[in-house]
């Protein structure tokens, strides 16, 4: 991986795509670095696939510009772009053999049959399908077809490889294997991958960086860790992993940011973890696994935020305990405690104290819309 060099290979500037009255993609600007694995993550209808299709040349942008390096490719048709795509349906040519499918792009570039055959064999071994070249696509399993689709795209050594939810047709177990496989292949060939998915775990596992999209806009961008630990919007906080959020107001001051909630007093959050330009109504949040659950009346460390509540549900999940705790005014907090020998396991109905460190507290702008569309999975 050459992510550290941060050479921009593809640049999107103010991309807009409207279908009738719907703004599917609404002013998206993005730089894709050379050799990185970038995921576009979001619920269905968030504009991620439309963005990918504009990059591939299958969809004409309403406005905006696409650069590959310094070349403006916005108006180039797909066959004149140095991009290849792995389609969600794989789109393998059913009337051609696996080998002819893979050789399709090479033959269009005028490479001889014999030379193409050599490259095809290399690709077949890269994706672990040696000796399957003479089969027809429908003689292969779903996972194998997907690898043929990948080989067919990679053999052309494109500047950018687009992957449109390629795992959605695979079962959960195969998906896990393919995720690792895909990551291996990507680091082996060193081609820039743009991966579209609605599966946050998939995006976290494979990506160097994640772009979280919602309603045609980019809501969060960064490494999986940064996006998870420092969500920039309420949507990101709830779509990527789970978050406990309380409505509040930002207090002016220096040092740690203070947020006064309407019902539970003041919480603090480190200034460096707070997005720029927050004003007025905000939400203060914490991830379920950052919260410590204690018996009521336990002492609170001065560096912690705290809240009392009553356990509604207590579930043992094997690797841990999950609690739903109701705060006095009805907000429900999800708390996750690792099963690593903790002694205190409250039962439902019990009054408890929740504490979490200030440094794990984040603040996001309260969005007008109460719940994000699409379920976090």
């Amino acid at each position, binding site marked *: 991986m050459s992510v550290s060099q941060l050479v921009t290979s593809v640049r999107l500037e103010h991309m807009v795509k409207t279908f009738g009255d719907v703004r599917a993609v609404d002013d998206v600007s993005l730089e894709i670095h050379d050799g990185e694995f970038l995921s576009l993550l979001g619920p269905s209808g968030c504009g991620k696939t439309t963005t990918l299709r504009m990059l591939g040349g299958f969809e004409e942008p309403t406005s905006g510009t696409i650069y590959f390096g310094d070349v403006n490719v916005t108006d180039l048709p*797909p066959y004149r772009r140095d991009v290849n795509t792995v389609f969600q349906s794989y*789109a393998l040519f059913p*009337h051609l053999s696996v080998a002819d499918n893979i050789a*399709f792009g090479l033959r*269009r*570039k005028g490479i001889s049959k014999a030379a193409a055959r050599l490259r095809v064999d290399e690709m077949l071994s890269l994706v672990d399908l040696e000796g399957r070249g003479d089969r027809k696509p429908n003689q292969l399993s779903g996972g194998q077809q997907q690898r043929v689709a990948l080989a*067919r795209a990679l053999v*052309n050594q494109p500047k950018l490889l687009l992957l449109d939810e390629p795992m959605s047709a695979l079962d959960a177990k195969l998906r896990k294997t393919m995720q690792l496989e895909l990551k291996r292949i990507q680091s082996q060939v060193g081609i820039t991958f743009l991966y579209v998915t609605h599966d946050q775990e998939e995006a976290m596992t494979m990506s160097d960086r994640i772009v979280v999209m919602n309603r045609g806009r980019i809501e969060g961008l960064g490494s999986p860790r940064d996006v998870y630990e420092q969500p920039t919007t309420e949507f990101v906080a709830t779509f990527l992993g789970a978050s406990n959020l309380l409505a509040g107001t930002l207090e002016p001051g220096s040092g740690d940011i203070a947020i006064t909630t309407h019902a539970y007093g003041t919480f603090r959050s480190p200034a460096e973890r707070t997005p720029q330009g927050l004003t007025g109504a905000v939400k203060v949040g914490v991830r379920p696994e950052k919260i410590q659950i204690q018996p009521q009346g336990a002492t609170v460390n001065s560096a912690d935020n705290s809240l009392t509540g009553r356990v509604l549900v207590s579930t043992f999940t094997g690797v841990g305990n999950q609690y739903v705790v109701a705060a006095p005014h009805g907000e429900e907090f999800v708390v996750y405690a690792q099963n690593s020998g903790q002694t205190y396991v409250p039962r439902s109905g019990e009054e408890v104290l929740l504490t979490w460190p200030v440094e794990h507290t984040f603040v996001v702008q309260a969005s007008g819309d109460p719940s994000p569309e699409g379920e976090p999975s």
Partner: protein
Amino acid sequence: MSRKRGRWLGIYSYLLLGYLLVPIIGMVFFSFNDVLAGRPQISFQWNGATLRWYRELTQVVGLPQSFWLSIRLAVASTIIATMIGTLLALALVRYEGKKFKGRRIVDQTLFMNIAAPEIVMGASLLGMFASYHIARGFTTLLLSHAVFSIAYVTVTVRARLQGFDRHLEEASGDLGAKPLTTFRLVTLPMIMPGVLAGAMMAFALSLDDFVVSNFVSGTTLPFPVWVYGATRMGVPPQVFVFGTIIFLLGAAGAIGSLVMSRRGMKRS
């Protein structure tokens, strides 16, 4: 119980097949029927077997010419109708709105073309050719046959296109194929079964058309029109021989396509 039902189904199937085949078998059978006296014409009284009509196949004035005309007409009109019909089907499925403003009208016209009685089409074609002073002959026959075949080709190809995964064409473009190359290497092979079925239908429609041909043929008589004219004087036995030839060609084509598709299925 199920075995009994199976037997009845078998009997029913053979009865139906027999019903469909009896006229054809009769035709083939009586193509070997001898004529004892007078002007040779078909009769359904058995006079003993002969190969005479096969030997004298081309001896009837006008008959071989009309048969050959029908074949040429069918081939030419099939080619025209298949090309136009296939492209029309693509246009109807792929484009709408601003890109294809008359789409609904074209769609309706196709339907009317199929639904309209042949006699109406024949009369109106004759009227049109007459008012434009186009002499009746091979050209008018060809134009007419192509016109009534197009709709059938379009409907058949369109059915095939409806389940077509557009991503296949996008993938082709994505891999560097220009639109025409994509059509040649991806679209056409994928819809080929539909195109072939449409072409076969067009061929059969042209070969046995009588009503429209009768209006627009003038003195150039295709096989069915010639046979109809001959009934007034007595139909020569060679007509049965030509009928048998057409049937055998058709049967060979059907068996051939069956074998091809079997082989295709085995391979995939």
